[in-house]
């Protein structure tokens, strides 16, 4: 038995060797085919199907836009009737121009002033013709036609009337004060620029700020968005007693919204709340014999009303204007105990509350109160310089001009900052998916903003305002798009957890057989040589 096995063992190598040699090439080919498919086909497949999709962006243009200076072209037109000497007007214009050149706003914003003299047949003309540029119109009115107190009158249209006097310096100074403080409000523009660039006030500036400036900063704390939503909430605590249906109110507010359309779009919505009451902070005042709401209790009213407000999926800022139909007469009093005119108050960036005591009163009264609240919330109010008066109108032309210049600065800076932030964000985080839609929006925003800058240079003010608004909207849409986050929080160890159960059991035999195939190939080559 032992000899037989030994004999067999001696014979075995010869036969086995031949068999193995015949079969080996096919074995190697089979392994090689498998390995080939896995490496040559599998690896590119894996790379292509699992890479994060990132479309290309115009980086250089985005960065360039955020470093450019805004130049707003301002056209000042001084109109004079025949009673005033033309040479005198020219002197005034020169003095004015010289003074305005020394005006420093901000390094990011430059105002280019052009002063123009326009002869008109009579001082009663209130309209000087519209133009594509930002036109501030002043009409020099001679003493004989001036029938009102003070020296400046800000009209309900675009025109400001100036009382004529012999002193050119005085008139130039008047016009300059009117421009810098009221009609263009350079301080406000400077604040807006600093806010958009996130430059903080220094301690010195805070200490020397006047009350008026502080208030201004409170009311301008939010940027002027391209669109706002206005929610009118009619609160009826006792519908049996008062069931006014103010359906005309939206129609009454619409002309105001339409007039504002070139600067910001207002969307009006209204809602009725029945059997909802204000929190009971009113007290009975014996002197006025009525319920009063103290001014310092007003913040306590706003918070509890928040839970009745609906939310809409939109990035536009909202103004909640509440109208309270009080069952008993209710008056808002200020710190001195005097009734507040209009019986309404406004909260910055939130909205306001108006109290209606008489259910059956005319809607136009209420509409006036609401428009006033909106004016305050949008920053349309102004402090007049001494010895000047203002015509009453819901929205004067020069107020719209001022709002438009503010909107231009806001939109352009906001768009540029958003684009730069987007560029930085997408560059730093490699995991963010940049879809074709996002890239398209960014391109469109960059194009619109570049065009806006060009139009500003060409003194096309109103088209520039529209384009800057569009650029700001597109940049915001791209920045807040949810598709960017699709793969953001995908941790690396989860990726390994996905791949390892698939690749490891397949990969280990492949690697081992790869080794065998390679040694076989080299042995064969060696044998051939």
């Amino acid at each position: 038995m032992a000899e037989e096995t030994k004999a067999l063992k001696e014979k075995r190598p010869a036969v086995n060797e031949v068999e193995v040699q015949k079969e080996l090439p096919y074995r190697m080919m089979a392994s090689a085919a498998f390995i080939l498919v896995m490496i040559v086909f599998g690896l590119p497949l894996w790379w292509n199907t699992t890479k994060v999709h990132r479309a290309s962006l115009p980086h250089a243009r985005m960065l360039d836009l955020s470093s450019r200076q805004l130049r707003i072209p301002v056209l000042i037109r001084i109109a004079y009737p025949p009673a005033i000497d033309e040479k005198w007007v020219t002197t005034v214009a020169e003095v004015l121009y010289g003074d305005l050149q020394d005006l420093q706003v901000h390094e990011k914003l430059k105002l280019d002033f052009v002063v123009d003299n326009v002869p008109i047949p009579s001082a009663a003309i209130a309209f000087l013709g519209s133009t594509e540029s930002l036109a501030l119109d002043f009409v020099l009115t001679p003493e004989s036609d001036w029938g009102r107190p003070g020296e400046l009158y800000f009209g309900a249209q675009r025109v400001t009337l100036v009382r004529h006097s012999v002193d050119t310096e005085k008139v130039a100074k008047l016009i300059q004060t009117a421009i810098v403080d009221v009609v263009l409000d350079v301080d406000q523009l400077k604040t807006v620029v600093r806010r958009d660039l996130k430059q903080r006030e220094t301690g010195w500036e805070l200490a020397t700020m006047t009350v008026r400036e502080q208030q201004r900063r409170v009311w301008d704390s939010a940027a002027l968005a391209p669109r706002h939503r206005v929610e009118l909430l009619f609160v009826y605590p006792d519908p049996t007693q008062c069931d006014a249906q103010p359906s005309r109110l939206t129609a009454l507010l619409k002309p105001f919204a339409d007039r504002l359309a070139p600067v910001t779009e207002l969307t009006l919505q209204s809602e009725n709340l029945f059997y909802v009451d204000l929190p009971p902070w009113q007290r009975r005042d014996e002197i006025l014999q009525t319920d009063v709401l103290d001014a310092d209790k007003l913040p306590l009213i706003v918070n509890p009303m928040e839970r009745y407000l609906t939310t809409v999926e939109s990035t536009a800022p909202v103004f909640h204007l509440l109208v309270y139909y009080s069952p008993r007469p209710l008056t808002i009093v200020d710190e001195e105990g005097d009734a507040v005119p209009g019986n309404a108050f406004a909260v910055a960036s939130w909205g306001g509350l108006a109290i209606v005591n008489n259910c059956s009163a005319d809607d136009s009264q209420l509409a006036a109160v609401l428009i006033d609240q909106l004016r305050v919330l949008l920053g349309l109010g102004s402090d007049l310089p001494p010895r000047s008066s203002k015509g009453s109108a819901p929205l004067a032309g020069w107020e719209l001009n001022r709002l438009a210049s503010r909107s231009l600065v806001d939109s352009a800076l906001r768009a540029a900052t958003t684009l730069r932030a987007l560029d930085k964000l997408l560059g730093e985080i490699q995991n963010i998916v940049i879809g074709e839609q996002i890239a398209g929006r960014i391109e469109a925003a960059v194009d619109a903003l570049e065009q806006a800058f060009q139009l500003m240079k060409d003194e096309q003010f109103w088209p520039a305002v529209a384009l800057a608004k569009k650029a700001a909207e597109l940049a915001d849409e791209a920045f807040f798009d949810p598709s960017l986050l699709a793969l953001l929080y995908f941790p690396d160890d989860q990726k390994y957890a996905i791949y390892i159960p698939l690749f490891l059991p397949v990969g280990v035999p492949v690697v081992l057989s790869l080794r065998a195939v390679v040694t076989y190939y080299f042995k064969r080559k060696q044998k051939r040589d």
Partner: protein
Amino acid sequence: MKRQRSEVKRIEKTEKTDGNEPLFVRSMDVASAAVVVQVCYLFNPFGIASCIAMTTSVFHNFLIAAALVAFQSGRPYVSASVLALVSMLGLYPAVLMVPIALHYATAGGNSKTPFDWTAFCSSIAVFCSVWAGALYMIVTLSGSWQFLQSTYLFFVLVPDLTPTVGVFWYFFTEVFDHFRLFFLWVFQLNIFIFVIPLALTLRRSPMMLFHILLILIAVFKPYPSVGDAVVYMALLPIWRHLYLYIRHSFLAACTMAVFAVLAPVMWKLWIQDGSANANFYFAITLAYCTAQIFLLTDLLYAELRHRIHMTHGIRVVDESGTEAKIALS
């Protein structure tokens, strides 16, 4: 009704014939194989279940059996055409063209004749042209290419994840969208990647290659059913001479029996009673797939081991058999 089939297996004559009887195919095995195969097909519980459910797998099985008969009885182009029809209906039986073409190129697995490339290519060409002709007919009849969405693209893209006895649905319910395309490619490639290595290893046994590919298709199809398993289970009796070397028959058989009992139970508990969840059903389905894979590797192992013994006799002392070079997972 299934047609009668006859098998012919070439026997390799070697010097050592005494004591090697179990290695050879007996003529009475060949004669009884036909009856045994028919009985196995007709009384297979999975086949009866498919009939009760009134599925179309009976047509698929019939066409596959017809292709098998045609290629074993020496009609190459008939089998290629029939297989083209089956492939047109379900995409995956196309891989069965490889053993058919190999059969004609090697004249039935004879290792002495050189590899006939013209026969190989002509049978594949007939297959492709019949498939193309059938597709053209469909396009003309339906007027557009829209049918692709509901047929081939449905197989390839796996949009519907209704639970089946396969492995696709459970994985694709939980895969992240970002990786879906990648894993879809991997899963589809899984069927086709094994064809070439298997063909190279079994180039001399096209019948065994056909059988193994049937099992492979039944396991890795995107939408398999138990009706797909009936054909290869019915074909098992023809390998009577390999029974000596099959190692896991008990395990596979028991797993299949347990699957046949538990799968409907788990399904009812999950879908109708709502007291179980998908994992119960998937576990038993996974066991079924594992049993099929055990069967596949057993057949392959037995075939290769049989070859060794045919040349070295039944009592080869050295432990050959499992060739570690076969990189099949």
